[in-house]
């Protein structure tokens, strides 16, 4: 057979070597991140867990009320859902999961929007970044957990890292799309009145693209949530860990209860980000 004559290409070994090298070379970056960021995550989650749940429930309900345009639907759901989670004894886990999602999406958005802007401004950048985004999104999410552990050990930090890689593409894509969709006449108008590149971006393009970008942010947040659940496999605490341990013990009841908790959190976060987009 001809095919058998092609020598085996050691891709897996290559990747291993590559990840090892990165871990070695950049340990001076990774270690402070692991310590500093890990500390921040711990403090944030612990502080949230220390606040009496009733305060948080009321606060979130009020926010929901105003964000949804002074309607009671979302607020009611928020109250019932959060009380249910508390009732099931998963409050602390919920706080951990929320902290992870919050920081993971925050980093994704902070990195993703500028990258999206870069893509929209440069055809070259778009040609380079698009396949990278495709790769990031199609590679099974579990795979990211492996280098994440190599870089950052176990716990919340690698969870955020894996989530960042998995969840950033939508906000990048939507930002790029949103800016490219701004009507040609509006771009011409801002040029014709002598706007600089930055003025055009901040006064015309970003405001015009806002809705599209927010749709991307919503996607990114939802993907973060799905990823931090998976990240429980590398020791990230939270609702995901409950699901995982229920799975390991083949315990349907607790598994579903923790699952419900995730669904409730997902719905609240989704509706919040969507309503942010609707306002005005």
């Amino acid at each position, binding site marked *: 057979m001809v095919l058998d004559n092609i020598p085996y290409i050691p891709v897996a070994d290559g990747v291993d070597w590559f990840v090892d090298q990165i871990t070695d070379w950049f340990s001076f970056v990774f270690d402070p991140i692991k310590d500093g960021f890990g500390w921040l995550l711990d403090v944030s989650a612990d502080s949230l867990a220390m606040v009496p749940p009733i305060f948080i429930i009321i606060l979130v309900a009020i926010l929901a009320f105003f964000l949804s345009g002074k309607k009671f639907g979302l607020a009611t759901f928020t109250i019932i859902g959060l009380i249910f989670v508390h009732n099931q004894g998963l409050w602390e886990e919920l706080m951990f999961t929320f902290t992870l999602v919050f920081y993971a999406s925050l980093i994704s958005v902070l990195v993703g929007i500028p990258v999206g802007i870069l893509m929209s401004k440069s055809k070259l950048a778009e040609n380079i970044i698009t396949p990278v985004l495709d790769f990031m999104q199609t590679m099974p999410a579990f795979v990211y957990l492996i280098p994440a552990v190599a870089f950052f050990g176990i716990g919340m930090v690698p969870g955020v890292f894996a989530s960042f890689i998995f969840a950033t593409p939508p906000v990048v894509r939507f930002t790029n799309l949103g800016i490219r969709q701004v*009507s040609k*006449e*509006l771009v*011409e*108008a*801002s*040029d*014709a*009145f*002598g*706007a*600089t590149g930055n*003025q055009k971006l901040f*006064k*015309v393009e970003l*405001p*015009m693209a*806002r809705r599209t970008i927010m749709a991307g942010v919503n996607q990114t947040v939802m993907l973060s949530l799905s990823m931090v659940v998976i990240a429980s496999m590398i020791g990230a605490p939270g609702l995901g860990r409950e699901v995982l341990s229920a799975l390991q013990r083949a315990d349907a009841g607790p598994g579903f209860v923790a699952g419900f908790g995730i669904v409730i959190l997902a719905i609240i976060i989704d509706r919040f980000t969507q309503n942010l987009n609707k306002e005005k």
Partner: protein
Amino acid sequence: MPIKVENLSKIFGKKTKEATKLLDEGYSKEEVLEKTGCTVGVNRATFEVEEGEVFVIMGLSGSGKSTLVRLLNRLIEPTEGSVEIDGQNLATMNKEDLREIRRTKMSMVFQKFALFPFRTVLDNAEFGLEVQGIEKEERTQKAKEALDLVGLGGYVNQYPSQLSGGMQQRVGLARALTNDPEVLLMDEAFSALDPLIRKDMQDELLDLQETMKKTIIFITHDLDEALRIGDRIALMKDGSIVQIGTPEEILINPANDYVEKFVEDVDRSKVLTADKIMKRPETVDYDKHGPRVALERMREQGLSSIFVTDRSRNLKGYVTAEDARKAREEGVSQLSTIMKDDIPTADLETSIQDIFNIIHDAPVPVAVTEDGKLRGVIVRGAVIAALADGNEVNGDGA
């Protein structure tokens, strides 16, 4: 001389050098496209626009007029040629200077208004000053003045989507006027409006122009519009300017078939007939009057010639002021000796189209006759006015 455009070209595509060379050798737009794959947007446009002039660039879609106007403020980079404004060549200046020109000397009004939907009317009008970093107070004041000028003073806090098309374009106009530019580029500014509103806007622009005296470069595909508002008109075809002239010159002396065809396309030229635009004629009586009366009547009416009829208004001929004067000096008392009869005539039903051809090289106004009787007279100006302003035409003669 605010604007001087020389050999301004835009060729879209990769082999622009080759395409330019082919154009120089006299190949047509189609041939250049076939040989090089390049599209000729604008082909060596050359013209000058006087200060305070309304200069209309007219052509059908695809003729390159929108590209041309964008070359003037370099929204599209010219392939070659120059655009001089106040002696500076816009085509070659650096980004900073260009921005300065765009901020202070040239403004643009867009076909689809191009208003910023998330900004109020006032904020839209302020945009030009805002990017210049002018203080909020000053720019608000100037924007309000501009909005007052276009009659939108009461709408400052509305959003564009709350306004009608005509009002939106007023905002577009106010935005362009706020930074008090020397040159106003208007790209099919009224084409998206319905015909009645369009006419209002044209009138309003002309009213404003009375006081503003801006240099306006107005792009349109509509000959009626061009005739109404243009001091001069440049006609474009396939990226080239085929004729530049006053509305009258364009109508009466079309430079080529293309222009002629354009002129023919003026709807009214087919519909309007002689009886709709003729005026009551001044005449003298062949039997009763002599050169002295003829001369007197011409002087009263400010005419250089007058028609001669008999008692039952049968057209006999005409006399010119010059001949009448001579006859009076020589003591001739009969009109018949100085009367000429090479009168251009038309029937009541003759179309404006045909009257063009008659009036074109006629020495005197066209006489409109019915069974040999004089019914009216058509002067050159009436033809132009009728074409430019069809809606107001009514037969106040005959």
